């Protein structure tokens, strides 16, 4: 129950102001198509340098939570999901808006998001200390395998092609080795002076997530959003609350599905929303209404995509394994303040850990309160031409990357990685495992070296890294995640080929 002791810290003037700003800003950013939660959080990191670690994390956490919920605004009013997590919301939300029930759909989406989000954060509060305690037993070989597990799980589950996902992870791990070797001081892969100090994680995160979006907007050419905002008529919040209470099945399935999916590294909010929508439809007594503007569809999808936010941080805060790309960006935000997740976080910086987690709890309530008022404005922002968005994101990326260490080298690295990532994405590679490799690479390497030294003095490398219950378990999970993804990929390909043949 440690979290209760730090609850008051959330309400210190600056922290609360940042929480409020992050929530409102996140709602608006989330509603903007093309600005994903990951990119929004990555672009915000430079603004946290001048803040205390806990305040920086509050800002990032609030932005993460509210961008996911804010995506529902454009999904409902414009039929454009603000983020992939809101795809399922579009199915019934936009239909409701077209029927003149836009306000009701928005109210239900924010209320369901808050319920799902609070449940998810409570799960984070109660699961995290238990797992962090367990993580104390980890030695270098286990930490090495955990880092590899983080890269392979995201690489295999988050990518359309397992091989390309794993290859993206390898590229990230290689990029992490650029610079001077920590132990021998040897130069590694420094083919340009800008790389002398290695690749700065924040500059890389900005480049890998923001620049491909800019180029995607450029690639669309001179095009309007083409979406009309549906006007929102007034609707009683009390009636929406009563409607939510009348739909416990959708709320329950959404919340539980989102929480479980959030705990699995690599499976994002998009899956959570779609699975919850599908399951609610299966169990609902009004199946035929789904897709035609049924409130249960909106409730299930939004409860699920926000319920996964808290649990997705469990592996990050306990084992240093980011469960999602946004969690990876948050890890970057922690590392720049010299804070390492795991038991160290809860033993040495409990104020940071608990105030951050508590702020996410308060943030859910703020998001619900302000979401309804900001929705109209957010929908207007979502109509901003892509040319303006692309120029804004590009300039923010340049200033953000430069402000990390006042180095033009970081700006060059950011731009090169971003352009490279855009083309890699077009060829089926994925940014998430690459980022994970970049972040977890130093952890994997230092534990590999440390473990090697212990092994040389004791049982030998093969025995040290490949035996022992925990090592075998971790290796088995790595193999199982790759095998499962490969099997799923083969299955879907066979299915597609069969369909193509029949067509």
């Amino acid at each position, binding site marked *: 129950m440690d979290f209760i002791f730090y609850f008051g810290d959330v309400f210190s003037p600056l922290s609360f102001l940042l929480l409020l700003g992050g929530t409102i800003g996140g709602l608006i950013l989330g509603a903007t198509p093309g600005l994903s939660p990951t990119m929004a959080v990555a672009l915000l990191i430079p*603004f946290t340098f001048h803040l205390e670690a806990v305040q920086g994390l509050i800002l990032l956490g609030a932005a993460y939570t509210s961008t996911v919920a804010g995506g529902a605004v454009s999904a409902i009013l414009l039929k454009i999901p603000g983020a992939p997590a809101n795809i399922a919301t579009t199915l019934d939300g936009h239909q409701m808006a077209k029927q003149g029930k836009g306000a009701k759909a928005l109210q239900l989406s924010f209320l369901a998001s808050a319920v799902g989000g609070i449940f998810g954060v409570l799960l984070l509060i109660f699961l995290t200390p238990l797992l962090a305690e367990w993580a104390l037993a980890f030695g270098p070989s286990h930490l090495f395998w955990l880092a590899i597990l983080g890269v392979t799980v995201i690489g295999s589950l988050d990518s359309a092609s397992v*091989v390309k996902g794993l290859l993206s992870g390898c590229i990230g791990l290689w990029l992490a080795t650029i610079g001077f070797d920590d132990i021998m001081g040897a130069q590694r892969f420094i083919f340009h002076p800008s790389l002398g100090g290695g690749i700065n994680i924040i500059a890389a995160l900005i480049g890998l997530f923001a620049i491909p979006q800019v*180029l995607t907007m*450029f690639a669309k050419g001179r095009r309007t959003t083409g979406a009309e905002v549906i006007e929102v008529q007034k609707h009683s919040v009390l009636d929406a609350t009563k409607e939510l209470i009348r739909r416990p099945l959708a709320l329950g399935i959404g919340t539980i599905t989102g929480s479980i999916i959030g705990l699995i590294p690599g499976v994002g909010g998009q899956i959570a929303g779609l699975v919850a929508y599908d399951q609610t439809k299966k169990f609902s007594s009004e199946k035929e209404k789904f897709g035609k503007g049924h409130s249960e569809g909106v409730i299930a999808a939004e409860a699920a995509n926000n319920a996964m936010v808290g649990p997705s941080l469990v592996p990050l805060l306990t084992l240093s394994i980011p469960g999602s790309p946004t969690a990876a960006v948050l890890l970057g935000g922690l590392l720049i303040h010299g804070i390492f997740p795991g038991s160290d976080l809860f033993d040495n910086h409990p104020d940071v850990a608990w105030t951050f987690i508590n702020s996410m709890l308060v943030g859910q309530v703020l998001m619900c309160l302000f979401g309804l008022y900001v929705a109209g404005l957010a929908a207007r922002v979502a109509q901003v031409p892509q040319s*303006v968005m692309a120029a804004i994101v590009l300039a923010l990326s340049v*200033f953000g990357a430069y402000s990390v260490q006042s180095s033009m080298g970081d700006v*060059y690295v950011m*731009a090169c990685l971003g352009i490279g990532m855009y*083309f890699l*994405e077009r060829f089926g590679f994925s940014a998430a495992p690459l980022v994970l490799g970049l972040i977890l690479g130093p952890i994997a390497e230092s534990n590999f070296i440390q473990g090697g030294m212990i092994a040389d003095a004791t049982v030998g490398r093969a025995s040290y890294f490949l035996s022992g219950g925990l090592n075998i378990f971790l290796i088995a999970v790595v193999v199982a995640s790759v095998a499962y993804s490969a099997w799923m990929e083969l299955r879907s390909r066979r299915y597609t080929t069969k369909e193509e043949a029949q067509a």
Partner: protein
Amino acid sequence: MNRSQHIFGSGLVFAVGIWVAWISYTQQPAEAFLFPRLIASVFVVLAGWTFGKAVLGLSKVGSGVSRTMFLNMVPGVAVMLIYVFLAAKALGFYTATAIAFFILLSIYDPAPHSEAKTWIKRALTTAVFVAVMYGLFALLLSVYTPREILF
């Protein structure tokens, strides 16, 4: 997608993999390259597999870059490269940002170029944006950026 695009893309990644492996296995001290060797080995195998599939025409994932997309992108990328690699340092961040921002709006804004109102709107948007950036980075965050001309 065009098979040759897949071959080119995966071939480039494979070439990088071979270069990484070559450096890892030839550079000294060997201890410093122990971990890179481990990665490079997996890198080369996976990149070789991807390249092989592309050559055989079996690559299914990834839609590549169409001619229209490429042509749409070229002016924006050119402005971006000049902005990042030349103008930001030579002209100063705020001046370069204002110019790049205005040019990008002019290229990609769907509003008609023939109307004076459009140009005024673009100029005003640029001015407001640069003012916000100045307030945010120079005044609020005290980030000292290169300032060569103007501010």
